[in-house]
């Protein structure tokens, strides 16, 4: 009877308080890669623990020759909840996945059609320039649709070095397939939007992904160019001619990013600690709770 309780408690901790706490530790952003691994480990362990709690409750009450009515009812309820949780995840995964891919395909089709030639980015593969004064730079992720899009407004405001830095940042997103990690956390948030810290997790992972792309772009002495590109494009969004078109809301993550561009690290001890925690979160429950339960079934 201990196994379902342990796994249940673990699931509750890993779905709520632990991510909430982790999101309040901004120092983890100085080792973005290790932090990403930890976040993914916590999310995976939370899901596995939740499913394991349900399944172990089924086996601990109904895994006998002739269970009584009460244990049988509990087992059925547990199985139902587990199936619902898994079903919700799969349905969300499907809905979010097809939705995102359809949106990206449509966007890519329109961008390819409306794009202009621009000598400031000739030769750069999969880069498209849109003729609009609002300064925008973004990418369309996905193996078959990947594009980096810049507006004329952005190219007009950025120096050649800054353009190189922005392109390197966007390409880093595409090459590292950050969209997949964001999709996974998006699915979790879609499936379980309340009572768990899925929103905080998604927000933090989105920031980490930007920091990772900044890191990739800031190599080769491009730190300054990357920072000034960030500030220039932020400025352009506020003061541009299409002010009515731009939402001009606040984005605190920009300040975090500019500050971290100057952080040279490498913070090896912190990275090692976070990676160890990631390993522990997955290995310790598996070794001390799941394996004894599974072997005890025989």
């Amino acid at each position, binding site marked *: 009877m201990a196994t379902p309780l342990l796994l249940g408690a673990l699931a509750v901790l890993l779905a709520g308080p632990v991510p909430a706490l982790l999101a309040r530790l901004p120092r983890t952003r100085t080792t973005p890669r290790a932090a990403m691994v930890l976040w993914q480990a916590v999310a995976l362990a939370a899901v596995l623990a939740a499913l394991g709690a349900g399944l172990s409750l089924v086996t601990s009450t109904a895994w006998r020759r002739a269970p009584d009515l009460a244990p049988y009812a509990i087992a059925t309820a547990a199985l139902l909840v587990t199936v619902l949780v898994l079903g919700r995840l799969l349905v969300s995964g499907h809905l979010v996945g097809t939705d995102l891919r359809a949106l990206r395909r449509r966007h890519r089709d329109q961008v390819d059609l409306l794009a202009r030639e621009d000598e400031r980015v000739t030769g750069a593969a999969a880069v498209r320039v849109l003729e609009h004064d609002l300064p925008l730079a973004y990418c369309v992720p996905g193996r078959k649709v990947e594009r980096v899009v810049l507006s004329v407004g952005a190219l007009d405001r950025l120096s050649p070095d800054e353009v190189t830095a922005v392109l390197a940042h966007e390409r880093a997103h595409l090459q590292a397939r950050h969209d997949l990690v964001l999709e996974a956390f998006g699915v979790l948030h879609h499936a379980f939007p309340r009572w768990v810290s899925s929103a905080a997790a998604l927000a933090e992972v989105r920031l980490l992904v930007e920091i990772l792309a900044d890191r990739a772009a800031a190599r080769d002495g491009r730190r300054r160019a990357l920072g000034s590109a960030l500030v220039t494009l932020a400025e352009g969004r506020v003061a541009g001619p299409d002010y009515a078109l731009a939402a001009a*809301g606040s984005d605190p993550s920009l300040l975090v990013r500019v500050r971290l561009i100057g952080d040279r690290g490498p913070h090896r001890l912190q990275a090692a600690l976070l990676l160890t925690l990631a390993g522990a979160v997955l290995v310790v429950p598996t070794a001390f709770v799941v394996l004894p339960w599974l072997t005890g079934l025989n």
Partner: protein
Amino acid sequence: MPLRSLGDLERSVMEQLWAAPDTGPDGGAHEGLTVREVHGALSEDRDLAYTTVMTVMDRLARKELVTQEKDGRAYRYRARASRAAMTAELMRETLADFDAHDRRTALTAFVEDASAEDVAALRRALDQLDPA
């Protein structure tokens, strides 16, 4: 003759449609171009099968980038809007996508959004960065 990609062809067709005049010969709204008219214009500098152009224009209609109206036995095609209007529309959609913030977004922005206060703080932080 270089093999043109389908994307290039779609763009060439759109350019023909965008270049079509706004008013027709009788002074009313232009009715749109037929496949034959577009094929004629495009074949001037390349070898292009009529059916290829027809397929491309049909695809554009299905993607709702052009409107398709029957005129007797042929279809007449018009671009959904001018290039500038379609670009502005795409920019609006892109910004709306960024506004989704904590919900899932299809695109990844370099700078999602900013306010005037952000920019002031950003400039100060940038000044504190040591070069390179």
